[in-house]
């Protein structure tokens, strides 16, 4: 097939501006447009359903724009005490967790980026080993259990305080800072702590921003630690609430259908999508501004991870 196209395009003109090429251009632009549609439609669908009147949703009439637009669903959702608590918990976990992540990763990456540090090789080997091999879910659960931090914020933010991959990316970045800066700072009488805080970190704003975003989004989206280590409902992050409503709600929807309570189900469908919108909105809103940092992070990591 490839050959056919090649013949087609080069047979007509010399530099690949033939008919085949133009047809391909049109086809490609349309294909990419369809790709955009498929990528965005679920989000759009969630928005229009959550803004539509329940009756229209029930009748499956909503597919492109909201019908009988109303904010009623959002009023219900934003007043739901479990969602409000979930939001608050998620914000706390994200802020505290990300700060711990950044501090721990920098404190780990910086010393290990100093080539003269005795024992650096063996420490690095021990850390990298954890990327290959881990105790797994149950032994980790038992450790968290015996630390007595089940049902507390620490069970959410401490396991996974350092992502080894991110730490190595940071270390790679720190290693790129010229040695002469260290020497200059040393001559000026700066201690290693001062060098880290006054020289290295200010020069590493790009990587810190990237890590902040990776870790932050990770915390915002995470529900596994909550699933494993939290039993108390008032500690649940937003994702756990979301899971109970949107994913497990599936069963109750079937049940209510059997029960014939149609007006309740209407509210439930629009509510599910409203909860999805509310929980993803923060990410979608900051996304356009921070997107380039994410990409940068991947690039730094892939140069030499």
């Amino acid at each position: 097939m490839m050959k056919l196209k090649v013949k087609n395009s080069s047979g007509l003109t010399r530099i690949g501006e033939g008919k085949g090429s133009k047809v391909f251009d049109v086809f490609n632009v349309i294909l990419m447009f369809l790709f955009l549609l498929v990528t965005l439609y679920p989000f759009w669908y969630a928005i229009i359903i959550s803004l539509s009147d329940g009756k229209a949703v029930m009748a499956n009439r909503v597919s492109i724009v909201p019908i009988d637009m109303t904010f009623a669903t959002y009023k219900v959702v934003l007043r739901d005490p479990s969602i409000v608590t979930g939001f608050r918990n998620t914000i706390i976990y994200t802020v505290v967790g990300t700060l711990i992540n950044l501090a721990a990763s920098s404190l780990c990456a910086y010393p290990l980026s100093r080539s003269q540090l005795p024992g650096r090789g063996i420490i690095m080997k021990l850390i990298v080993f954890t990327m290959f091999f881990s105790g797994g879910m149950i032994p980790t659960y038992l450790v968290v259990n015996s630390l007595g931090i089940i049902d507390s914020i620490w069970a959410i933010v401490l396991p996974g305080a350092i992502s080894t991959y991110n730490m190595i990316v940071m270390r790679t970045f720190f290693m790129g800072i010229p040695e002469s800066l260290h020497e200059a700072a040393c001559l000026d009488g700066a201690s290693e702590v001062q060098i880290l805080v006054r020289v290295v970190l200010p020069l590493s704003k790009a990587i810190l921003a990237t890590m902040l975003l990776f870790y932050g989004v990770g915390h915002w989206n995470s529900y596994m630690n909550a699933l494993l280590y939290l039993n108390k409902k008032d500690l649940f992050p937003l994702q756990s609430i979301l899971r109970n409503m949107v994913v497990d709600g599936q069963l109750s929807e079937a049940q209510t259908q059997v029960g014939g309570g149609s007006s309740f189900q209407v509210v439930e469908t629009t509510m599910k999508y409203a909860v999805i919108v509310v929980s993803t909105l923060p990410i979608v809103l900051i996304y356009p501004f921070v997107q380039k940092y994410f990409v940068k992070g991947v690039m730094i990591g892939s140069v030499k991870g």
Partner: protein
Amino acid sequence: MLIIQKSEGRAGVKPPLNKRFNRIWQYRHLYLMLIAPLAYYLIFCYWPMYGLQIGFKKYGINTGILGSPWVGFKYFEEYLGEAYFWKVVRNTFLLNIYSLIFSFPMPIILALLLNEVRSSFYKKLVQSISYLPHFMSTVVVCGFVINFLANSGPVNAVLDKLLGHKVQFLMEARYFRTIYIVSGIWQNIGWNSIIYFAAISGVDGQLYEAAIMDGAGRFRQVWHITIPAIMPTVTIMLILAIGGLLNVGYEKIILLYNGSTYETADVISSYVYRKGILGADYSYSTAVGVFQSVIGMIFIWSANKFSSLVGENSLW
């Protein structure tokens, strides 16, 4: 406080006993920094590894790791003899193989196609938007999947009109893998293509100019320049994917599966989760976990060795 210590250290503290100690003493602040991170690795990575021994013991919460009696390979024999365990292993492999076949090429195709788009504004727009689903949580993605495919969802509304009947997608085992793979592609195709974009944008423009001078059309340029340029990246990514052949995260699985789809959906990690966390059968599930950890390590380790043989860019 640390700073004060340091300045004292430079001037006043007595010279240490020997050279080796002297050298370590010189870097004491760096070691101090490492205390918290190393404590983390010790507690949350190495302690669980130590805890793996309960797979060989009859563990009880009251007796603890050390107090529980050894039972040798009892649990290993138990699960290795179970047909269900092998079904779970098979499911894990198959999900990975299918994603290798269907998900793996997608980002490459996207990168190649998008690279041919002439308008750089449009190119950037598509690229930026394509990353977005990657930042959605698993719960949100599964929420979309479940509600789109639900009996009252939009997909069934269309099917109802076209075919006259609805399909219970999430209740039938045969649809599970497709749902899992397709939703995975939707979420990650854009994000995974970044690395290929980078490889493509690293190609020297002169190569294309030379190819045009030689009369190569666009498709020849892609075939002879762009594709060879991304091959090293493709190889590395492929090896990495093969390294993870025994790893399927249970995060997405346990959101999407249910009793009627265990047949195809249950993987090693979700099995461990059900047995261990929900069933509190700690020793048995740890023994299953050991199987996954050990085989997984062999896979990843050989993949990494292999990738450093193939290209100069070893993974770490």
